[in-house]
């Protein structure tokens, strides 16, 4: 039975909660069981925001977990906070524009991806989160790119401009990661 546990973390303004939602919705649209759990309330006001996403073929029991299968980390404080919450052989995607993780151990698969920089290059810094999803997709292939695009449409239903820029961000991330994979 497939079960994928993802944590997305970053600062308040980086759209990590939305990133998690898009992941969850795409899973749902592919017929999987999904769960999205945000940090909330006063926790948010301080610094980091994060959410946990679970995507599974079967019913999801516990909504909380100790170790994630994948982390998507958008900034440095989040990296410090979450870097131990990942299982052996787990995937750690780090926004290398704002943080960096040396792959010191063989325990993890670490991908330093310049998410913010890619987004800035696209002319829309705030799409860095979507770039991150693209990277994740390319690396994990859990969900079809087309489903993910529909999920983005769904989440951003009302705002057409945002839809197109985010779709591009998704693709950029995806292709960046594919290139990265090949070059390794």
């Amino acid at each position, binding site marked *: 039975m497939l079960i994928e546990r993802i944590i997305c973390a970053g*600062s308040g303004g980086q759209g990590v909660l939305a990133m998690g939602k898009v992941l969850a919705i795409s899973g749902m649209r592919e017929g999987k069981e999904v769960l999205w759990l945000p940090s909330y309330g006063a926790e948010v006001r301080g*610094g980091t925001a994060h959410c946990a996403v679970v995507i599974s073929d079967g019913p999801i029991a516990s909504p909380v977990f100790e170790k994630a299968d994948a982390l998507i980390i958008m*900034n*440095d*404080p989040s990296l410090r906070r979450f870097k131990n919450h990942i299982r052996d052989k787990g995937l750690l995607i780090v926004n290398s524009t*704002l943080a960096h993780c040396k792959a010191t151990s063989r325990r993890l698969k670490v991908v330093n991806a310049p998410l913010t920089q890619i987004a800035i290059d696209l002319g829309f810094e705030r799409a860095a989160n979507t770039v991150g999803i693209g990277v994740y997709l390319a690396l994990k292939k859990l969900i079809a790119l087309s489903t993910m695009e529909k999920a983005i449409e769904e989440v951003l239903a009302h705002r057409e401009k945002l839809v197109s820029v985010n779709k591009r961000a998704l693709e950029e991330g995806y292709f960046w990661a594919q290139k990265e994979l090949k070059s390794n």
Partner: protein
Amino acid sequence: MAKTKIRKNRCKGCGLCIAYCPKKNIKADTQHNEAGYFPAVLVCDDDCTGCGICYLVCPEVCIEIDP
């Protein structure tokens, strides 16, 4: 010329000091600080009159001024 000090890592980059400095002597840094904000920095130490307005409007109390 007053000695004005902005505690970089305490600043939340709200921009109020920047907006109210009568000398336009404060600007936002281009580098984010530890907390991820782009903090206020003095443009030029010499231009500061020590008027205290930046201190007055700063919600984080991260500006100190010696006359």
